């Protein structure tokens, strides 16, 4: 049982947590003031302290610093007692799994000095430790936090840090900032406005530098918490971490730990996503969208394909350029937007996270990796979806190169309709005349296909047909509602993130269908509003934050939206596992 730590929200591996002391501490945070070290067992035997709820007690420990031979850490490992007050166990990555029996609320990693500055070792150790300890426990990385690295530490899954290194650096005349470290004697300005820096650089001494460093670390942690709350830590990291090479190395190597990040990354957000670097291409959200579009989505239109460039305005259909494309196409073709960093966006998925949420820096110039990525996605898309004709209404820069690459790879013939620029009169009339002989599809077909496409994307290949066998659509795009033949509502499209929310009838359809159901098994109670983790008996591993889930137990059948991943639900003893939208007693 984790009694004193609860995760309230998640942004990838980073979390907003609450260390539930007599005065709660919201994490990621400095733990200095609330940490009570019961001491090391290396020099002397120690009693398990009495402890209380005012502090996080570090249980008597034997720390294994970097370089400790495996047989030594194994032989000297401490069996921690299970205590009834907030407690932390000191572990090394290799001993963490064995230490979980004591149900500590937090774990202190004893080889942090070995990890800081070394991206590969850091990522390996943090991932290994995080996976060994329960999700609803805090991870403390002592003695290494700086204003520059703390965002990346949190991004990797660290919850607690301290001021020790910041103070020590201050005593050495090293002035710390979010963009790195300055030697005090080199500074002409004090690039900060904290109270310690309210003086001239001439009078600013090392004591002031210690205070400033702590202030800067506090401020950096405030930024981290706000970024996590708004679901935008990754956007920040991609920029800020670049100030130190090893931090850039950390987030890039974490991208290669796809399983670790994917499990922790929500399937939807309302927040904007900044697409400002090549690293954005490797974000889980981007990779996941491309995977689903090329592996789950299926085009249900019989019309030709028109490839168009994306627009800055989202959703695309509300942009001026896409309005012009639409006027030319007139429902005679299926429109798919090409875009970096998303890849390809079929018109039915233009609302679906992150298609309407990303914002790229548009220069007209495409990097080689962007071209490669979008070409790969388009190729995979066209392997899965056949069209009678493919019209490429794209400008020269990047787009044309991608189209020609894919055309050649798949031995297809694209018809190119742009002269000069896609929105010139010539280009648009060329597009219109190219399609003039094609038949139009109707509003009903468009709406049905949209709902089914989103169901495919959200629930799996073929789910659109399995869930919506016979379908009646009500209301207007984008607020579409899916009803069955009898008029019972099954689902609604949520315009903010382009995914479906199910009704109880929809959930029952899902359970009865061949589409893989994401199921949360609960104890015998009827949940209202939410299901808490202790009530969860088991949960599908595939559940991600934001997923629709069916909640079932001896007393209730419900549908809701997951607040935790499946593995986190199963191993947590605190926190909200899922919101409940509709419930009925059974």
């Amino acid at each position, binding site marked *: 049982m984790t009694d004193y730590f609860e995760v309230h929200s998640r942004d990838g591996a980073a979390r907003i947590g609450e260390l539930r002391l007599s005065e709660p501490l919201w994490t990621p945070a400095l733990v200095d003031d609330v940490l009570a070290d019961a001491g*090391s067992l*290396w020099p002397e035997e120690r009693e398990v302290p009495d402890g209380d709820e005012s502090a996080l007690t570090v249980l008597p420990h*034997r720390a294994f610093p*970097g370089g400790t*031979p495996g047989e030594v850490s194994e032989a*000297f490992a401490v069996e921690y007692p299970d205590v009834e007050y907030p407690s932390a166990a000191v572990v090394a990555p290799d001993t963490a799994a064995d230490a979980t029996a004591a149900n500590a609320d937090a774990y202190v990693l004893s080889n942090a*000095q070995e990890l800081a500055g070394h991206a590969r070792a850091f990522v390996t150790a943090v991932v290994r430790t995080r996976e060994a300890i329960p999700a609803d426990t805090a991870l403390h990385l002592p003695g290494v936090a700086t204003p520059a690295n703390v965002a990346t530490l949190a991004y990797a899954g660290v919850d607690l840090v301290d001021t*020790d290194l910041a103070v020590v650096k201050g*005593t050495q005349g090293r002035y710390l900032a979010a963009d790195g470290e300055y030697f005090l004697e080199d500074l002409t300005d004090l690039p900060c406005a904290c109270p310690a820096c309210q003086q001239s650089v001439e009078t600013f001494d090392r004591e002031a530098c210690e205070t400033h460093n702590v202030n800067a670390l506090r401020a950096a942690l405030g930024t981290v918490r706000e970024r996590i709350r708004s679901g935008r830590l990754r956007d920040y990291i991609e920029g800020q971490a670049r100030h130190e090479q090893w931090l850039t190395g950390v987030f890039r190597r974490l991208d290669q730990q796809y399983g670790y990040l994917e499990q922790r990354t929500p399937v939807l957000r309302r927040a904007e996503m900044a697409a400002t670097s090549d690293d954005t291409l490797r974000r889980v959200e981007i990779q996941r969208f491309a995977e689903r579009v090329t592996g789950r989505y299926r085009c249900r239109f019989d019309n030709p394909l028109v490839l168009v460039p994306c627009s800055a305005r989202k959703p695309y259909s509300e942009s001026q350029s896409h309005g012009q494309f639409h006027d030319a196409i007139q429902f005679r073709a299926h429109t798919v937007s090409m875009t970096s960093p998303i890849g390809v966006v079929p018109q039915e998925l233009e609302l679906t996270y992150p298609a309407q949420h990303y914002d790229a820096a548009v220069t007209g110039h495409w990097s080689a990796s962007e071209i490669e990525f979008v070409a790969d996605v388009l190729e995979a898309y066209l392997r899965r979806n056949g069209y009678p004709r493919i019209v490429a209404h794209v400008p020269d820069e990047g787009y044309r190169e991608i189209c020609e690459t894919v055309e050649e790879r798949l031995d297809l013939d694209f018809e190119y309709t742009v002269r000069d620029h896609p929105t010139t009169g010539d280009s648009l009339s060329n597009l219109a005349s190219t399609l003039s002989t094609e038949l139009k599809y109707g509003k009903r077909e468009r709406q049905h296909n949209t709902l089914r496409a989103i169901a495919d994307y959200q629930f799996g290949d073929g789910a659109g047909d399995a869930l919506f066998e016979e379908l009646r659509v009500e209301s207007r795009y984008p607020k579409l509602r899916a009803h069955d033949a009898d008029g019972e509502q099954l689902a609604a499209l949520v315009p903010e993130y382009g995914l479906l929310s199910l009704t109880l009838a929809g959930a029952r359809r899902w359970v009865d269908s061949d589409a893989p159901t994401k199921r949360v098994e609960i104890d015998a109670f009827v949940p209202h509003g939410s299901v808490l983790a202790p009530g969860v008996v088991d949960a599908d591993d595939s559940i991600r934050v934001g997923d629709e889930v069916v909640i079932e137990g001896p007393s209730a059948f419900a549908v809701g939206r997951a607040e935790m991943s499946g593995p986190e639900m199963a191993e947590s003893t605190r926190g909200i596992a899922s919101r409940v939208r509709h419930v009925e007693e059974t």
Partner: protein
Amino acid sequence: MSKPSPEVYEQGRGMDAHNQAMREIRARKDRTYDPREPTRVWLDEDNTPDGVYDSLTIILNTGGCRWARAGGCTMCGYVAESVEGGTVAHEDLMTQVQTCLDHERENAEDPAGQVKIYTSGSFLDEREIPVETRQSIAETFADRDRIVVESLPDFVDREKIADFTDRGLATDVAVGLETATDRVRRDCVNKYFGFAEFERAAADAREAGAGVKAYLLMKPPFLSESEAIADMKRSIGRCADVAGCHTVSMNPCNVQRHTMVEDLFHADGYRPPWLWSVADVLESTADEDVIVVSDPVGHGSDRGPHNCGDCDDRVQRAIKDFDLRQEAAVFEQVSCACERTWEAVVERERTYSMPLAR
């Protein structure tokens, strides 16, 4: 509330692990040594109960410490400086002694009043130094005033010491006690004897008319800076209370090749002690009824005890000054901006966050 003891360390298990790890680490060394060459010889000056003496200091190459062959101490690389394969013959050992005498003759005007003989293990272990050799060496140096021989306490007995005292030499047995805390000696240093054994050896030496010099190790692995300081202060106090133990030589740990300490050091898990810590211990134990000296080896380097790089030589000089004068006031003469860093480290560093500063 369940409240089991956190102490699950099983007697022997930790030592087996240390030994296994150390054997693997030592196996990496590939150098061998000439059995006719001493490991090292130098001339220096020492504070003794009889005043300050010029010393001829010899490290004999004896084939190595038996304990080190089993694995041995976590910080000790001297086994790597021993001959391969085992014992060194009497003739070879005497050749080494002769080399040392030649060195002295070339570098000093007069023979030193004191001779200190260390080995890579125990001078009084007869499997290392045969009886014949011990007696020949005693005879060789019978004209000096004082002799110091190094030994683990197990090998200390009256008859062996009598070889020296009977020849009129004021004799000290130097014992690598490392710390008065049995737990630290066992778990951090991986040395097998207890403080009681040291007390027994001191009593035996005293009965034979000899004295004991305790060698302490400042900052073994797995201790934070503040724990290391506290352990030394406590240890010096306990040594002072042992009858016959008239001198404590506190050696700040340095990073020797092919040791566990070196592995920790390379993985940012160990930093040798600050010279400020050495000064702090000397200063605060100056009033103890025992001579306390320290000779920081490799001072100022990353692998040796060091401060910030600017003040290392000055602090080292103060320490050497203290060795001869035993006056705490010598440390009032030195200061540096890095004292504040040291203070922060002492206050903040934990075994789970060390080293906080390099």
